[in-house]
């Protein structure tokens, strides 16, 4: 290796980007050549000086707490929903969903179809209401315990909510009437996508008419010793996943695909 080669590998050598073999060759040359080793030394000195000068800059003291405050200040339910509705990219699918809802509703009203009795259909309508902002949560809370207590107070039922991953935000809950029975409905947000969870409690403990979900025509999927059922909603844009646990039946509904919804559930 000669002085010209050193010029070629100058920066790669200084930046430790050369392989061991090349590195040794250069070191050997620098050992013999005072001029090159001086040049390398001076270049290093320059780098150190630049680094020192830039590193005198420190982040202002308030910056860290400002960032943390901004993270903690989670946007409210309506802000999220508004954002989710206003986003241009969502307007088209939403307009599609809205049309689909109107079409489905008018179709079923005119034909007076049996589907009105289908709990999944009713659950989907509730989810659409949630999506279209028509359904206010009766209670707005991010606290699982507060929501469970609310259900207990209102219906006397003890509800067990499934364990949900931290990146899914609990928003609130409501008790819409489905077939004359108040059904616990829990709202979540995954980023900007609303998710609704219905809990059909054990029909023995449920007052009024028995309501049961017919999972039989849905796709069965076994995951972690649990049987999950998946299907598309009536509108085509919604996805449903359902499961049974300790006598209760759960239905989760969202525009997320069913795989994503399953991943939201901690243990499943």
């Amino acid at each position, binding site marked *: 290796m000669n002085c*010209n080669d050193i*010029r*070629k590998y*100058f*920066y*790669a050598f200084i*930046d*430790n*980007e050369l392989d061991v073999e090349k590195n040794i060759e250069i070191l050997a040359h620098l050992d013999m050549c005072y001029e090159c080793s001086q*040049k390398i030394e*001076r*270049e290093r*000195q*320059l*780098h150190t*000086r*630049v*680094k*020192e*000068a*830039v*590193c*005198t*800059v*420190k*982040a*202002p003291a308030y*910056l*860290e707490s*400002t*960032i*943390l405050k*901004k*993270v903690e200040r989670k946007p409210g339910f309506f802000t999220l929903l508004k954002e989710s509705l206003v986003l241009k990219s969502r307007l088209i699918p939403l307009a599609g969903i809205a049309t689909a809802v109107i079409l489905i509703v008018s179709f079923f009203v005119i034909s007076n179809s049996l589907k009105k009795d289908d709990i999944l259909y009713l659950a989907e309508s509730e989810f659409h209401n949630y999506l279209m902002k028509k359904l206010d949560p009766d209670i707005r809370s991010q606290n699982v315990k507060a929501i469970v207590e609310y259900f207990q107070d209102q219906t006397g039922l003890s509800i067990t909510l499934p364990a949900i*991953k*931290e*990146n899914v935000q609990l928003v609130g809950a409501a008790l819409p009437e489905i077939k004359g029975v108040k059904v616990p409905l829990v709202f979540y947000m995954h980023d900007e996508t609303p998710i609704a969870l219905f809990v059909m409690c054990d029909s023995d403990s449920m007052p009024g008419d028995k309501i049961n979900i017919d999972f039989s025509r849905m796709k069965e999927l076994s995951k972690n010793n649990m049987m999950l059922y998946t299907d598309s909603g009536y509108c085509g844009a919604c996805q449903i996943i359902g499961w049974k646990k300790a006598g209760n039946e759960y239905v989760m509904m969202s525009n997320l695909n069913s795989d994503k919804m399953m991943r939201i559930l901690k243990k499943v």
Partner: protein
Amino acid sequence: MSQKDSLLIHIDALYRSALYLVKNRSNADDLAQETYLRAFKFLREDREISNEKAWLFKILINTFINQYRKEKKEPSLVDFNSIESFHESIEEEVLMSPIMENEAEFNKLLDDDVKKALEGLPDDFRMVILLSTVEGFSYKEISDMVKCPIGTVMSRIYRGRRMLKERLTGYAKKHGYERE
């Protein structure tokens, strides 16, 4: 230590790079904040980050390119070296190698000189110098951050340092004469 805390360790590094990228404190504040908010949003996704500092800088550079460069409407530099490998592209430049004669004493430089010289460089060159010389990222990491082939990164480092050195040599000599 929470994931957030371990990311916040790099706040000084992130802020100083932000400041040198956007060149004013208020925008640097915004850029650093935006970088962390994006990073934290991603954290909730339950993923593991292997090299936190490099990952944060990738977000920083990405945010800078998307937000501040667009506002400035500064045309991006033409990547005429992107197809060539570094050693090929550098052959022609050996004559104007980084080694210059009569280099001045760099330790005489003031912090302000360095600041002025760095801020005077075009964005793409200033960016790679901050990432390599100041933060010590590898060429591969930088290539991933600025989304350019390694050859282009090396060429930018080479040209950027050369430009920087020319400016600094000027300042250093000036101080030399002043003190004599």
